[in-house]
């Protein structure tokens, strides 16, 4: 057979519409993969730049001494832009009666390199987010400072020796969470005014921050260059380490997005397999005729191989274009709803699309077509002769391995891949071994049922093997959709649980014991809810098991035990949110010198359960034995402590109290009254930080929902392909039933029952697979706690039955409104 004839046959096939179905499946597969992966890529790069916002730069060089000019020049020569910042606590003075300890941040032109500095002309006025900073000679104050200092716009204040004019209010800094200089409210000034203040002297607590921005390669090359040169008190902050909670969120979001992309690959493969099998089945007779006319097996293989190659090329190009259009349209359509400005997608999605198309063609579309070469020409004489052994086990094995490789390559995560494979294996294992048994059992049940049920269940059993395969495909598609929904819900649920809407957003420190009633009365009066008051005593761990620990300055390198200073507290019970890892908690009336350590702290000082520690509190020294090791949830907004004692041990030492509380934005002026009632307390304001975090989490959650939507559409398409794969046999049987006089009600009822039973069973299998995959993903990938999702066990079968039932009957609706003879001729 010449390639010219192959072209002719291909074009004739194309005209018949059969190839169109295969091409449609391929285009769908490629476009979903390209669409999801490019959408994911764009979201990922956007989320990465979103996390850069928390540094106000792509990288920050933090130093206790001024950053060398040579380093700045080197950074700029490597193509990075720079901006210098200086932070320190100091006093701001309006007049003799109005002064406040403030956290000063001096910035230079270009700040921030990433994200926006938000400010307003009036303390709580309209927010401006354009790129400007206070000019030389001017300051912007946190809104609360206007009241504390009793100043308004245009007034002068003193910072050290410099007299500066108030020209605005600071409303939001991108790096508020990472650039903290003391506990006071913010005062933002120009770095050019620093020399005039005269406040920075040798020994001052100052943090210099060199912000750097540029492409990733320039940032990493400068990091490599500068890291060996870093001295004591100098470090590099990168996006990865800037904000653990946000990173954690973004890491998990990324894991989810990659999971979604991998699922798109599996769905694509399933769609292609179904379409190709149907194509193969419909072409058995065609090939038999060709062979009876003298076509040889290799010519048949060449014809279909050639057709597939052409289809693959067309499908890849069209699929990539459609996928690109889908994500572009998606982004266009969603416009302002999109959580972040989408970044570039790069070429990887197209490459993924091409490789997916090639793998799908070779491992999923080709095996059913290659088997066509084995079709017996005898079937032109005898309709009962088909292709024996139409799909070999090694075809499934090769296909399975190729999809595992593709998922692994795509997700870059063995854990994600294995989790999904575990779920799919459960579906397939249960499906193939149990489905046929259940189907044949169904017939026995059907024997006692009415005629519609009997016919339907007999139909299911008659096509047992095909139905088992179809059920597994349905179950896989449903499982992937359920899995993504479950993981999305638990991720978002956990994020929201971490930052509940009523989480405390202020910490109060340095409350003297005699001030406790004053504070409690004040909060009661103001209607402010607080957490419990925690006693807090500063102390130092000196030795472990009589071995004196070296001081911090005597030790070089990480991981060497050293003396640590920490805030101690006492508690009758294990603090809320803490988990006991080792040892036991003491009784409330226990007066023995026990101590409980946080796990990381215990590592730092090299202490374990049962070790005896010497500690110093003020001038006193005491001995205590480690009674337990705890895990502390640092992400909670509660006061947390490294070291806890029994009440009777620590109560005798002088100490202060701390607490946390929640203020609504319009309650902020309460802080001014608080400071005037209790002038010695320190308040740490975390409300802006929490608001920033919540914004990011909301944005990421919305992004996940968008991707889930795309996957649900892809899953629905696979279900449609699955229904279509058995359409011919069902149409033929239904047409025969009608020809024999069956009423539409019986035919439709039979179809409903068949598809409802298939869908419900597939949904049940999917629930089992989802539980396994969700367990693996949540415990191994997302490091979350896993609890079985019991609702799956009814949601799976019910949604499976409804979706498959509706799609199935809808696809077969022609059987009741088309004359049976027309249908019989067609199929």
């Amino acid at each position: 057979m010449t390639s010219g004839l192959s072209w002719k046959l291909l074009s004739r096939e194309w005209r018949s519409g059969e190839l169109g179905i295969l091409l449609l499946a391929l285009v769908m597969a490629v476009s979903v993969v390209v669409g999801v992966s490019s959408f994911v890529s764009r979201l990922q790069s956007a989320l990465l730049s979103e996390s850069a916002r928390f540094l106000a730069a792509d990288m920050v060089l933090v130093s206790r001494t001024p950053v060398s000019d040579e380093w700045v020049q080197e950074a700029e020569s490597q193509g990075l832009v720079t901006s210098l910042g200086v932070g320190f606590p100091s006093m701001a003075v309006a007049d003799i009666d109005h002064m406040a300890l403030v956290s000063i941040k001096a910035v230079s032109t270009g700040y921030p390199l990433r994200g926006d500095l938000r400010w307003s002309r009036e303390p709580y006025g309209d927010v401006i987010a354009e790129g400007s900073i206070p000019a030389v000679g001017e300051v912007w104050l946190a809104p609360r400072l206007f009241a504390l200092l009793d100043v308004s716009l245009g007034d002068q204040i003193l910072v050290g020796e410099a007299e500066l004019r108030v020209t605005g209010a600071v409303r939001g800094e991108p790096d508020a969470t990472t650039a903290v200089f003391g506990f006071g409210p913010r005062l933002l000034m120009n770095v050019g005014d620093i020399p005039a203040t005269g406040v920075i002297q040798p020994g001052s607590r100052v943090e210099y921050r060199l912000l750097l921005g540029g492409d990733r390669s320039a940032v990493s090359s400068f990091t490599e260059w500068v890291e060996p040169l870093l001295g004591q008190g100098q470090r590099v902050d990168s996006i990865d380490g800037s904000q653990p909670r946000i990173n954690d969120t973004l890491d998990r979001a990324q894991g989810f997005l990659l999971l979604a992309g991998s699922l798109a690959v599996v769905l694509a493969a399933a769609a292609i397999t179904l379409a190709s099998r149907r194509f193969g089945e419909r072409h058995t007779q065609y090939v038999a005729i060709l062979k009876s006319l003298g076509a040889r097996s290799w010519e048949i293989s060449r014809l279909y191989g050639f057709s597939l190659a052409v289809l693959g090329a067309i499908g890849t190009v069209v699929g990539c274009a459609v996928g690109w259009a889908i994500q572009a349209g998606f982004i266009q359509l969603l416009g302002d709803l999109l959580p972040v400005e989408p970044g570039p997608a790069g070429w990887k999605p197209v490459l993924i699309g091409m490789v997916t198309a090639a793998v799908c063609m070779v491992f999923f579309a080709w095996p059913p077509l290659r088997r066509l070469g084995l079709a017996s020409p005898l079937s032109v004489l005898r309709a009962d002769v088909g292709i024996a052994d139409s799909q070999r086990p090694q075809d499934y094995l090769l296909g399975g391995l190729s999809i595992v490789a593709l998922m692994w390559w795509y997700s870059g995560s063995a854990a994600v891949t294995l989790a999904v494979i575990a779920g799919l294996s459960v579906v397939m294992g249960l499906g193939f071994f149990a489905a046929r048994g259940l189907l044949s059992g169904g017939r026995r049940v059907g024997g006692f049922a009415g005629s519609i049920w009997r016919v339907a269940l007999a139909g299911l059993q008659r096509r047992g093997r095909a139905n088992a395969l179809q059920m597994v495909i349905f179950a896989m598609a449903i499982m992937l959709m359920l899995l993504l929904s479950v993981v999305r819900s638990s991720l978002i649920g956990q994020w929201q649980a971490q930052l509940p809407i009523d989480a405390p957003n202020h910490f109060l420190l340095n409350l003297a014991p005699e001030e406790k009633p004053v504070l409690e009365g004040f909060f009661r009066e103001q209607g402010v809810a607080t957490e419990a008051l925690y006693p807090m005593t500063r102390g130092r761990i000196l030795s472990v098991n009589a071995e004196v620990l070296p001081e911090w300055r005597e030790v070089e390198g990480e991981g060497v035990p050293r003396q640590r200073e920490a805030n101690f507290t006492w508690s009758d019970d294990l603090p809320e949110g803490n988990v006991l890892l080792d040892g036991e908690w003491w009784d409330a009336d226990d007066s023995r010198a026990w101590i409980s350590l946080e796990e990381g702290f215990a590592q730092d000082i090299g202490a374990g359960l049962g070790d005896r520690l010497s500690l110093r509190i003020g001038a006193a020294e005491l001995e205590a034995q480690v009674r337990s090791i705890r895990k502390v949830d640092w992400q909670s907004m509660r006061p947390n402590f490294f070291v806890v004692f029994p009440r009777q041990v620590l109560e005798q030492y002088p100490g202060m109290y701390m607490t946390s509380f929640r203020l609504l934005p319009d309650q902020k002026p309460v802080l001014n009254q608080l400071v005037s009632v209790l002038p010695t307390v320190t308040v740490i304001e975390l409300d802006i930080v929490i608001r920033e975090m919540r914004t990011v989490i909301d944005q990421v959650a919305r992004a996940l929902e968008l991707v889930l939507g795309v996957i649900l559409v892809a899953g629905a398409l696979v279900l449609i392909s699955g229904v279509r794969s058995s359409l011919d046999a069902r149409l033929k049987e239904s047409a025969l039933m009608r020809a024999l006089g069956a009423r539409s009600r019986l035919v439709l009822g039979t179809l409903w029952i068949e598809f409802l039973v298939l869908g419900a069973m597939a949904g049940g299998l999917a629930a089992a697979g989802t539980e396994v995959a969700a367990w693996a993903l949540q415990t191994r990938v997302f490091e979350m706690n896993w609890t079985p999702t019991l609702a799956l066990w009814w949601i799976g079968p019910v949604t499976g039955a409804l979706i498959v039932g509706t799609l199935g009957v809808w696809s077969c609706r022609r059987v009741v409104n088309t004359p049976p003879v027309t249908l019989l001729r067609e199929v």
Partner: protein
Amino acid sequence: MIKVSQLLKTVSTADGDLNILRGIDLEIEPGASAAIVGASGSGKSTLLGLLAGMDVPSGGEIWLDGESLNELDEDQRARLRAEKVGFVFQSFQLLPALTARENVMLPLELAGVSDAEQIAEQFLVEVGLGERLSHYPTTLSGGEQQRVAIARAFARQPRILFADEPTGNLDTRTGERVIELLFELNGRASTTLVLVTHDERLAARCDRCFAMTAGEIVER
């Protein structure tokens, strides 16, 4: 031309082996026409499939135009069909995606004939379908479809033509016209014709007639 010696065909069933053909001996001279008649299940179609090299026997030997089918593999048997054998089936077996012209062209193209289109058109004109060249099988009547199948069978100018119940799906009048056409073309091309039929009138028009009963054959 066609020689069959001690041909056996056995298939395995749940109840044990089933002998469909039990030692068939047969010889048909070049250019002769032969009818194989018999009741349903007597083994007629099985014999036809074996003669055309579309199936392999359990025993015995078949020679077609001097070549032993037993020595050929499936692809070599396909080549033999492409070069020397034509077919007419009861259910026409036209490819629904192809027009009448393309259906007739197909075996010519498979054999690499360069002017396939002209030959196909010429044969379609001969069977009276010159006006229906671009029609698809679904738009043709049963008789017209069978005429396309006959044109397809003769277009390659085969040495042997096998016909399986060529009138089985047609009414009497149409069937008669198709038979006329078949014999006319056969006479003109001096093709060896082997046909399987229930139709005694059709069998009577053949030079020889063989009757099959329970896998055995006798000449009448």
